[in-house]
């Protein structure tokens, strides 16, 4: 049985909106999504699934909740999409309330289960389709909807005003120059080799990450730039809330900014879901088969700088570290080997987790789950005991998390399960370890 405490969680975004729905509206929205917005993929997936349950073992939610069958991937689809299909959209409020909880908070669309299903059924896609239905019906967890609203207004996920953004960049330039003279942040530099794009938390709460990047760029002599205007944040909660129109708008703004600046490529900061939004989901909805200009994730960029000797390591981190593979850059881009190259270059005592690489467990924060906010925090942490056990087994002090979601998610896990570790971005270790020019 699904956890009774979680089932009772009240979220304004879901509970207050459900009452306003009429049966006609529900039916017409579900049928629109099933008949018009979906097609062969959905049909094949629903029909092919032989209900073998082999996907269960893949899911951290299922494993962390004592293998409660309600949390297996296929059970989540059964409780949501299959029923909607079977009843041809004629479902009621309580059903939708349950479906929204499952789709938004009990699946992080991490896609691990697709690697365990012998048919490669994309459960994350099916549950995203449920999210889409919920979004069209206006039932989205409050905090996630608020983030989507921020994207729609500000083209970034934290309502950051345009002047605050520029100010943060200028401030970080000063900070970086204090560490390494000449570590400038060139704004809107047309034709630069690299445009660096970040997500809003870097401007609002983790600004030093931008300063760090300025130091790394200077040390590696990279011709780079950052945009001073909207389009700098390509993170995308709208992608997870099911508001594909806003998702598309945000990604369009980002890519058009890059095209306008005529940069050769975009380096995405240490964020997995933003990478996913900019490389897959956004372009796909907009009609691009891939990003119109190449994009590399920071991990790949660091790998490039280190392996070509453009950045040299002067000293290594000695305390034991472990590494969280972010879903969106391992299952999403196969960067696990490069990531380990970087980590080994920086750390003497690296203790890997198991399972790892494409088979990593999600941090349970991804896929928008952490953005569902405080009401769901405890539920999220219950869903990720496996990660806590994995972390504890390494006995590391530092967990390297090259993704904002992983960073916050693991931070929460450490706190909740009292692991006594701390998290770091690769960028924070790099600035400590590299050889500074002129020193």
């Amino acid at each position, binding site marked *: 049985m699904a956890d009774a405490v979680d089932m009772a969680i009240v979220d304004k975004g879901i509970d207050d909106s459900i009452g306003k729905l009429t049966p006609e509206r529900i039916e017409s929205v579900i049928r629109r999504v099933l008949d018009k917005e979906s*097609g062969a993929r959905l049909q094949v997936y629903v029909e092919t699934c032989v209900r073998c*349950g082999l996907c269960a073992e893949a899911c951290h939610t299922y494993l962390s909740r004592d*293998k409660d*069958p309600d949390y297996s991937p296929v*059970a989540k689809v059964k409780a949501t999409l299959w029923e909607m299909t079977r009843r041809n959209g004629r479902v009621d409020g309580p059903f939708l309330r349950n479906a929204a909880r499952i789709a938004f908070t009990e699946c992080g669309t991490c896609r691990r289960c697709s690697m365990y299903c012998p048919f490669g059924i994309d459960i994350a896609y099916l549950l995203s389709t449920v999210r889409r239905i919920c979004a069209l019906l206006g039932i989205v967890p409050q905090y996630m909807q608020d983030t989507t609203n921020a994207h729609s207004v500000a083209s970034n996920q934290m309502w950051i005003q345009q002047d605050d953004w520029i100010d943060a960049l200028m401030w970080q330039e000063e900070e970086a120059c204090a560490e390494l003279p000449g570590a400038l942040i060139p704004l809107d530099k047309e034709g630069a080799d690299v445009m660096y794009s970040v997500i809003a938390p870097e401007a609002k709460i983790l600004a030093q990450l931008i300063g760090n990047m300025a130091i790394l760029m200077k040390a590696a002599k990279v011709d780079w730039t950052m945009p001073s205007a909207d389009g700098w944040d390509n993170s995308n909660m709208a992608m997870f809330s099911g508001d594909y129109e806003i998702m598309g708008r945000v990604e369009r703004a980002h890519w058009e900014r890059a095209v306008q600046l005529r940069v050769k490529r975009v380096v995405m900061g240490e964020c997995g879901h933003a990478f996913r939004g900019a490389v897959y989901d956004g372009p796909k909805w907009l009609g691009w*088969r891939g990003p119109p200009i190449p994009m590399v994730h920071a991990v790949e960029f660091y790998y490039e700088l280190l392996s070509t000797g453009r950045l040299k390591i002067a000293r290594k981190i000695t305390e034991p570290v472990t590494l969280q593979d972010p879903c969106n850059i391992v299952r999403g881009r196969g960067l696990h080997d490069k990531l380990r190259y970087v980590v080994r270059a920086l750390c003497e005592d690296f203790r890997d987790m198991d399972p790892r690489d494409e*088979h990593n467990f999600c941090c349970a924060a991804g896929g928008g789950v952490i953005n569902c906010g405080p009401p769901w925090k405890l539920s999220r942490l219950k869903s990720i005991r496996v990660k806590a056990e994995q972390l504890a087994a390494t006995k590391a002090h530092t967990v390297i998390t090259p993704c904002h979601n992983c960073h916050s998610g693991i931070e929460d896990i450490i706190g909740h399960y009292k692991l006594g570790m701390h998290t770091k971005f690769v960028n924070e270790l790099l600035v400590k370890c590299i050889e500074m020019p002129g020193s």
Partner: protein
Amino acid sequence: MYPYHVPLVWTAFIALFAGLSYRLVSMARLAAREKTVLPTLDAKYGARSILHWVIPFNSRNMRMRPLFTVVSFAFHICLLATPLLLMGHAVLWKTAWGLRWWSLPPVVADATTLVVIAGGVFFLLRRIAAPEVRKVTAVSDFLLVLLVISPFLTGFVARMQWFRSSIPYSTMITIHIVAGALWLAAIPFTRLSHMLWFVFSRAYMGSEFGAIRRARDW
């Protein structure tokens, strides 16, 4: 075979092939409407994925469940090989169309038949015993497995000439042929169509993982 079996057999084969073609064509149409699906399919990575998933113990999940993997592969291999390579069927192919090919020695065929039946029983028990499977199981899932093993059961009974005192051989054969016909005809229209879609769902996932996300999917 009796003359009255002939239309039944024909109907079953027509249902199978016409059904599969129909499903394929209408699904292709549907896929074309969903503009991103067909362009995403990638021959190389699609094939890579299929290949990796038809080799026993090649995926992590197969290694994590050795018993299931053995049963599943044995079940499927025997399930496909037995009817095609069966002496009792070969005779029919020959008399109908003059087609001939190699047949399994009868004892082997008996064994493969039993493997399928045993596999089916295993799946049935698993549906009851494993909570994560029971959770998503409906009556139709049991019926489907029963349908799948029914030609094997009836064929075996006929061959062994069991229960001859109560059921004449010819009746048993008729029952067998009805079961076989249902079996064939059910493939395109039930979840047994996974035989057809397996190739496509795997190829799609393989293309996404390989060509777009540059990762492995096994």
